[in-house]
């Protein structure tokens, strides 16, 4: 009983309750199933708030630990070990926050096999929570791989016309990265005789002094990077993302962009940076190079898209480039900006995917050029879309600006007297700043084509209805946070700051 009542255990596995209840429901009782899933995810969100209230922001260490020996025979030291700290608390909250919103968005969009959909969705939430909370490499790997399974089905069963291709590509791509990480995890586990991350951190300095050479450290770093960089996705490993996004159902896209991609950036933060300090410093400018290419490339390709969902998908490549750049600046501004930007991207891109999904439900097309003059017929929709777009492109006063600005500050700092000085220097920040302008171009271009000007083909022929109360309720929470973070980010930074400071002690 004590095991179950740990806040983090409860937070991770509570959605399973929902799954269990739904399993025994009649698959024809679609609304009842939706409400059950909604209730389960809302309660999970409630638990996450409880966790937040228990969380001591001034403490930089892992908190609320749930730690039990799991497999402890024949030289195995595997723990069931969940804990949260400033690096993960916001992502945990984001996961719990976006899941009910996504479920709400499926109310009318998903009519086929509602039961299975909700089961997979709640299972996905379990996996994501576990990824952000696990502090044992074995446990982490299990959760990490497990998230693939429900997402694979979400894309493959409820996706668009090329869903099977997209689902398999998503699965194989992501797995390709994680298997190399598996080898690295095993190697570390054998060398340090533990899979427990804090213990590993304590033992690694000695190992680096004796048995693990810098070359091996670099190989380990690369193996972990392979897993995380594909997930982020960093250029040039991003090609699975547009396919997955375009084919995924709306709720899947929201979670994919909002949370699943963050698992990659979080992985860098939790594992690469603390575990492999020397390799991190060495690799930082190169990561910055890839991140900068990603920023510019993502923005340029976004501009060229005819499909609005694809446009937002490629914009993710650009935005996550910023996150990577900030993180590998390895200074306080850069890293805290990166963490905040993970949240921001989840909010604004999540909102954009939701909104696109809402209009798609009515028109069944996502081609930009067939729209036009939408604002006139759907004023509420237009306003919400405008705010989300502005948030995504980083307008001051909204959340995106705070994140990108802090990241660029950090990147400039690292270019002047930090890790970037060895290669590239301030150029990384300088070129990336152009990406901000490019974001304005493709976002405003999309907005103008779809919402302003003369009524397009679709706008003409469809009786388009503006957002209903449910749809407004779906996006409203996201808008609130866009303004909140944009106008008063201090409480969010306060949650992150001590942990970031601790993370950067060695740098």
């Amino acid at each position: 009983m004590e095991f179950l009542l740990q806040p983090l255990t409860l937070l991770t596995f509570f959605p399973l309750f929902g799954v269990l209840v739904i399993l025994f429901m009649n698959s024809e009782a679609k609304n009842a199933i939706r409400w059950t899933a909604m209730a389960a995810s809302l309660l999970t969100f409630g638990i996450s708030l409880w966790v937040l209230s228990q969380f001591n922001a001034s403490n930089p260490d892992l908190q609320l630990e749930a730690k039990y020996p799991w497999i402890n025979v024949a030289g195995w030291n595997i723990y069931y070990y969940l804990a949260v700290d400033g690096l993960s608390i916001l992502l945990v909250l984001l996961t719990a926050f976006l899941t009910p919103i996504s479920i709400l968005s499926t109310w009318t969009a998903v009519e086929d096999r509602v039961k299975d959909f909700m089961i997979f969705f709640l299972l996905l939430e379990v996996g994501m929570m576990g990824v952000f909370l696990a502090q044992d490499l074995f446990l982490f790997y299990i959760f990490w791989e497990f998230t693939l399974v429900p997402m694979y089905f979400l894309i493959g069963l409820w996706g668009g016309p090329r869903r099977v291709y997209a689902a398999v590509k998503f699965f194989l791509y992501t797995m390709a990265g994680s298997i190399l990480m598996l080898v690295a995890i095993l190697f570390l586990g054998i060398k340090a005789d533990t899979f427990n991350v804090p213990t590993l951190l304590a033992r690694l300095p000695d190992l680096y002094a004796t048995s693990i050479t810098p070359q091996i450290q670099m190989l380990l770093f690369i193996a972990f990077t392979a897993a995380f960089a594909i997930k982020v996705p960093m250029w040039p490993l991003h090609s699975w993302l547009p396919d997955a996004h375009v084919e995924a159902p709306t709720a899947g896209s929201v979670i994919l962009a909002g949370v699943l991609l963050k698992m990659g950036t979080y992985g860098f933060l939790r594992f690469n940076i603390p575990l492999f300090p020397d390799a991190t410093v060495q690799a930082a400018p190169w990561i910055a190079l890839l991140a900068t290419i990603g920023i510019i490339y993502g923005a340029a390709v976004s501009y060229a898209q005819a499909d609005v969902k694809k446009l937002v998908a490629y914009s993710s490549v650009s935005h996550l480039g910023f996150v990577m750049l900030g993180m590998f600046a390895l200074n306080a501004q850069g890293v805290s900006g990166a963490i905040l930007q993970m949240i921001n991207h989840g909010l604004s891109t999540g909102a954009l995917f939701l909104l696109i999904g809402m209009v798609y439900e009515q028109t069944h097309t996502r081609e930009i050029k067939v729209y036009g003059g939408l604002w006139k017929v759907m004023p509420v929709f237009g306003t919400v879309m405008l705010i989300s777009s502005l948030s995504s492109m980083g307008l001051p006063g909204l959340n995106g600006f705070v994140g990108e600005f802090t990241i660029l500050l950090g990147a400039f700092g690292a270019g002047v007297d930090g890790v970037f000085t060895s290669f590239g220097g301030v150029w990384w920040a300088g070129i990336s700043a152009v990406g901000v302008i490019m974001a304005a171009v493709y976002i405003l271009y999309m907005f103008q084509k779809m919402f302003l000007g003369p009524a397009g083909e679709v706008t003409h022929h469809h009786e388009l209805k503006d957002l209903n109360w449910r749809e407004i309720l779906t996006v409203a929470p996201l808008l609130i946070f866009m303004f909140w973070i944009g106008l008063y980010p201090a409480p969010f930074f306060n949650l992150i700051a001590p942990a970031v400071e601790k993370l950067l002690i060695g740098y």
Partner: protein
Amino acid sequence: MTQNDFYTILPLTILTVWACLLLVVDLFIPKNSKGFTAFLSALGLTAALGYTLLFRNYESTGFNNMVVADGFSTFVNLLLLVSGLFGVALAYGYIKRAGIERGEYYILMLFSVAGMMLMAQASDLIIVFLALEWLSIPLYVLAAFARPNLQSEEAGVKYFLLGAFSTGFVVYGTALIYGATGTTSLGGIFYTASNQTPGLLLTIGAALLLVGFAFKVAAVPFHMWTPDVYQGSPTAVTAFMSSGAKIAGFAALLRVFATAFPAISADMTPVLWVLAALTMVVGNITAISQTNIKRMLAYSSIAHAGYILMAFVPYGNKEVLPVSVAAGLFYLASYAVTNFGAWAVVISLEKAEGRGLEISDFAGLAKKYPALAIAMTAFMLSLIGFPPTLGLVGKFYLFRAVIAGGYSGLAVIGVVTSLVSAYYYLRVVVNMYMREGDPSTESEMWLGFTTIITAVATVALSFIPQWMFAAAGAAVLRLF
């Protein structure tokens, strides 16, 4: 024969005597109720299983060190007996449906299991040879059991010819080893080889033994027979063969190499390395192009032989050996469970005259039979090595042993080929869930029972692998 000799081989004696009795009893069981023979066979297997479990800590050697009972053989015997039970459960409805219900099916299986158990206990090359024949001959007959079905007859003949051929290698290898060391006892070979510089003769002998066993466990390049035999044999036989024969083959290989040949590990390790890598690569890549589920699972079984072979590579390293033995056994166990489950699902879909065996015949299974589709998904994920299944835990254990032995490169080949395997295993899932179709299945109690047990075990044991780890860790080889 002393009392000690008697107890050492008691479990397999129970099985053999029981099978002999059944040969007579079966004559009096009417043709339309051969299910009773199945029941009696299961009873015999259960008795042997119970005895082995009860005396699982019994260790001894018998017949002048020619057979041995130790932690290793106990674990393998348990695995074989459980496989035998699954084999009976799968056959019960299947052979009735296929019109080949004859009592000797079960009796042959019992004999084969007994042979396999002797194989796991063999501590002398002569016994190894004896056990190899003992387990194989019933299998040849079983492969051709669906006569006059041409495919089945072909499978039987092919299996027999190649089996006999490979046995030749074993015999010749044994002869050379005898020439080099003057003994066929594993302990004797070990002493002689470690007290003098091992000559070329011993190495060649060991290599020939390896070839013989590589045939049995279907390692590349000695795997050619596998797809044809697996496809042609009655599916229930294939299921039993692909688990049982593999377990026995690997058990003998592991014991022979670890106890008798540590002295020549410098020569054999590179060979094993290449054999494992080749098996994983060829097995997985060839599986991609298969459209028939039986052939796909055959190549999958080849690929898994490659994974298990990885556990052999560090066999000369005394520190890693216990870990790699345990890892190999754990992997065999998890593979057996998953494999039986997958074959059970295949049998559910199989129609008369070998129809219903294409992967495309799985289309639409999830809509019509959701439980069956979930079970098959669990098996496929487990074969890939994906959470939350036993396959992942097994791979984790195995790769850890390989890396601990210092063969990270081989581990990388292992994980990359797992990625390749994800492609073809997922195709089954894609068909079940994402394609439209109208499959029909045979529902039968023991078949469903096997499916449920294996599916639950595949998933649940991945959460509580502790005791299986402990059991595999306790399966220590008796070294000299």
